[in-house]
């Protein structure tokens, strides 16, 4: 057994323990330990990335790599069988990109946090806890474990915004907390429903005596258990209920008669209950993505959060939303995914356009960047809704690329805020004259984000749009006009970035008179080069050599998409037919 995934998850936690033991006064040491912890995590992530075999397709119980499965909580429910929670982590093509992203951004975030002076120990402690929970989220294959990490993310973030944020930080922190908690409560409802409906075929086979305890998963035995289950031949006392996500992905593992079974035929508010479950899960993750109309916490949180926290929030935390959709929502409820593709895609396009229009209207540079995040994350929803190979690959690519680029954007905003303690666009003009290097990075970040060919943003948008346009023929999912509208989003993003660039950086140098006293406008220092340059290189690298990432992700993503599409159409018919019956 291989412990690389556990090391990835718990390295930051270990560093956090060391930080906890260090005295408050040793600020240098605290920072050094944090940096070391994140560096180790990054090295592990890169190592994992290279050792990961991109040609293997993860399907059902098999095919996840570096799997660790340990028995965690098991409890007999008497006549209702057993319930089981495992420490079950594994990596496949979908999560590998996110893990790599987390590793990189974790280090960049620490470099950007170097100037924190207020309550250093508390800050880095929370920072490390946050990293642990995000990594855990990306690697968990047990829904309970996923939910644990998912919820635990909120708390450090709440304090990071609320204690180290800007003037309205308390409001922003509580808004963030309540919004995302409500989202996770929706998820909790469905999680409970799923766990009462799904069995672990292997453990049930052990319970039935078909294979010996600790025996390897014999495909025949599992198939036999699934057949027996569907023919009502497994007594409920022998069923082992599970939170395992791969088990939930197979319709054959659902207990006949349970509410979420494809043939349950239960309706609620004129919709099959599986569709309701899908909508609840979708709502929960859409808050995190965030999609319009539940995005309103994001601008507040971003504007009030300190720069490194904004970076983490935009680059990694938002991805948990998209990742949850791809890992959990679509594979488990492919039928509803196919049925609601127009809704998901429509919300995606709405986010693209509405976010871009908002960004166009913003005077605060950080708000502009925040709304551009909303706009770009809309592409993830669109790509996913298309259920085409290109579209979903594009969605995953978008999450990775947006992680790199949005981190850069927020860092760039932080740089000007550090110098002038202000980031209103109209208060600056001609910054290119005094800060040439800074302006170069701003231009790189802006152009990467608006999708200039050669940057990673271009690849992802291209793939998503290709997917969207081919969807009507290939999968019959989205109407073509929706994708046409999405293209206007590209135009709008070019507009707000170029306009901001023109207003702030070009022309004669001028800054707002009241700012002059406090502001010391100097070009980038070494630390800022250190955090911006790698991101710029990465944005370029993944723009020029998309295969670097696609080689690792595309087999798994394509397999997942085709499976979802195929299962979706089959199950959709079953669900609808069971209603008529």
């Amino acid at each position: 057994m291989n412990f690389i995934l556990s090391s990835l998850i718990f390295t930051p936690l270990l560093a956090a323990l060391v930080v906890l033991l260090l005295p408050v006064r040793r600020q240098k040491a605290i920072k050094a330990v944090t940096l070391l912890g994140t560096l180790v995590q990054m090295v592990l992530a890169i190592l994992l990335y290279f050792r990961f075999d991109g040609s293997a397709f993860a399907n059902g119980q098999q095919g996840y790599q570096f799997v660790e499965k340990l028995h965690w909580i098991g409890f007999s429910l008497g006549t209702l069988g057993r319930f089981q929670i495992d420490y079950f982590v594994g990596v496949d093509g979908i999560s590998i990109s996110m893990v790599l992203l987390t590793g990189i951004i974790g280090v960049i975030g620490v470099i950007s946090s170097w100037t924190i002076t207020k309550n250093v120990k508390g800050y880095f402690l929370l920072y490390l806890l946050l990293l642990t929970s995000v990594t855990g989220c990306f690697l968990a294959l047990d829904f309970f474990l996923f939910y644990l990490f998912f919820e635990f993310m909120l708390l450090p973030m709440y304090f990071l915004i609320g204690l180290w944020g800007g003037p309205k930080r308390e409001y922003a922190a509580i808004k963030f907390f309540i919004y995302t908690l409500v989202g996770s409560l929706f998820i909790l409802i469905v999680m409970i429903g799923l766990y009462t409906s799904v069995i672990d075929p292997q453990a049930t086979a052990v319970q039935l005596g078909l294979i010996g305890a600790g025996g390897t998963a014999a495909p025949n035995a599992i198939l036999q258990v699934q057949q027996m289950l569907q023919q009502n031949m497994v007594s409920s006392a022998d069923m082992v209920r599970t939170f395992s996500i791969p088990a939930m992905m197979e319709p054959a593992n659902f207990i006949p008669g349970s509410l979420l079974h494809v043939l349950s035929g239960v309706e609620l508010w004129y919709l099959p209950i599986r569709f309701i479950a899908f909508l609840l899960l979708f709502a929960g993750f859409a808050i995190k993505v965030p999609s319009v109309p539940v995005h309103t916490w994001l601008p507040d949180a971003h504007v009030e959060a300190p720069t490194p926290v904004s970076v983490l929030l935009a680059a990694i935390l938002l991805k948990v939303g998209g990742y949850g959709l791809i890992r959990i929502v679509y594979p488990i409820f492919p039928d509803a995914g196919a049925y609601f593709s127009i809704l998901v895609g429509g919300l995606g396009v709405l986010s693209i356009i509405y976010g871009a229009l908002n960004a166009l209207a913003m005077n605060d540079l950080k708000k502009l960047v925040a709304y551009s995040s909303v706009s770009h994350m809309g592409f993830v929803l669109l790509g996913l809704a298309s259920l085409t190979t290109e579209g979903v690959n594009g969605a995953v690519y978008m999450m990775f690329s947006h992680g790199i680029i949005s981190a850069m954007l927020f860092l760039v905003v932080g740089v000007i805020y550090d110098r002038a303690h202000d980031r209103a666009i109209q208060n600056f003009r001609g910054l290119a004259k005094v800060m040439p290097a800074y302006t170069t990075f701003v231009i790189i970040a802006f152009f990467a984000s608006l999708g200039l060919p050669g940057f990673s943003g271009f690849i992802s948008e291209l793939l998503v749009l290709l997917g969207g346009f081919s969807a009507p023929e290939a999968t019959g999912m989205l109407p073509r006009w929706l994708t046409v509208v999405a293209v206007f989003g590209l135009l709008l993003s070019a507009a707000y970035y170029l306009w901001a660039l023109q207003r702030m950086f070009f022309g004669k140098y001028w800054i707002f008179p009241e700012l002059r006293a406090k502001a010391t406008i100097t070009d980038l220092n070494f630390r800022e080069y250190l955090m911006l340059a790698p991101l710029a290189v990465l944005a370029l690298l993944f723009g020029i050599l998309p295969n670097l990432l696609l080689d690792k992700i595309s087999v798994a993503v394509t397999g997942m998409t085709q499976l979802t599409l195929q299962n979706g159409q089959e199950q959709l018919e079953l669900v609808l037919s069971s209603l008529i019956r």
Partner: protein
Amino acid sequence: MNEQAAYLSDTISTIKAGAGVLLPELLLAFFFLLLVTLDLFKSRSIKQLLPWLALTGLFAALLIQVYGGYSSGKESFLDMLLSDGLARYAGVLFSAAGIFTVLLSLQNKALENLRQGRGEYYALILMLVLGLNLMAKSVNLLMVFLAIETVSIASYILTLTLKEEKRAVEAGLKYVLYGTLSAGVMLYGMSFFYGLTGSLHYTSEGFALALLRADTLLVTVAAILVFAGFFFKISAVPFHFWAPDVYQGAPMPVVALFSTGPKMAGIVVILRFVAPFTDALAFRDVQLFLGIAALATLAVGNFTALWQQTPRRLMAYSSVSHAGFLLTGLLAFGTDYTSSILFYLTVLLFMNFGIFLFLQIAEDAFKVEKLADFSGLGRLYPYLGVLALLYLLSLTGLPPLAGFVGKLLIFSNVWEAYTLTQNSLLLALLVTGILLTGVALFYYIKIPFYLFFKGNQTDEKLVISLSDKLLLGLFALALLVLFFKPDLLLTWIEQLLTQTL
């Protein structure tokens, strides 16, 4: 004459045979009498000894019930009291609650300054625990009534411990008034049951069969009347009005005890009482009443807590909302909900004693009366602040704390029951219960909000006693352990329950 003598000796021998069932209660009664007697002496050293004696008694009762060798579990005392696994586990919880109460009382400033009645205070705690034990063991309605009254009378006096304070007197008066009213209503309902079934032995099969034959409307009315008394004990809507005032007026350890002990005992009594009402067809109205009561309790508890300005009142409504969760769990008919409920009660015990200990420290050392008075305390005392945060998150029901597992178990039972019956009331309870967690976060988070986000009011550093710190850490540790390994406790509960069924 001879006949009478024979009858008498018969009775005496059955009493002797069944006395084993009552061993923990006898022990508690003995220590109660010991405390009352010793309290008569004026010697200071004896007075100092009293709390420790009370602790000894409670510990002894705890150990007896944990090891439980004193009865086979199936025998009953005159068909009145039954010492089955449920009662045994509940007894463990009550003894633990009593022990925690005494430990908290030892640290309490207001009690330290109390000029008279300290011995009586500890004796009454023993009395109350004794009453709770009897509640959990009763299988006869009359015995239930007597046990509840024992608990109530001890509670009334404990509320009035700080007689000099006006709010204590007000709280005591309200408590007595509501208490007697609900007791009267409950007794009235019990008389209905006696009339309808001819039996007071409410866990027997005959009782359940007679209920099925009786007029449904009358049974429903009678059940609602009896529930009035139970709801008073667990502070469920609409019998929760005493809670905020009593929580405001009583000493902190007593509040902690009220928020756990009588609530746990009330739930155990309801657990036994609802067993005949599981038939969804015959007793639809009773179930509807319980469902609506649970919904109302959840809603009133959570939404009213939003407006509270003092931590004590906030916790009162929080305790109402927990009663709502417990009632929700009780409605999952057809599933094995008993172990989930008992697990939730255990978690509640640790959460509530933890948070009330924190409030006691805050009140005694920092004069915290309003929520705003918490400002900056968490920054000044990180240990205190972080632990308070843990308790509050557990009360909200967030991972990684045991409160989450408790809610998860209860809601999975409700979902399971919904699968079986497709009763939309259960679905409503499930969705409401889970979504109200979001509301709950909003008021619980107010305390950490002031603790950490607001500036310091004072800069003086006070020393918090080591025993307080240890106790705080212990409660928090229990919550963490019960999150990461809930099966340790659940297996034991399940064992106890199956042993005696």
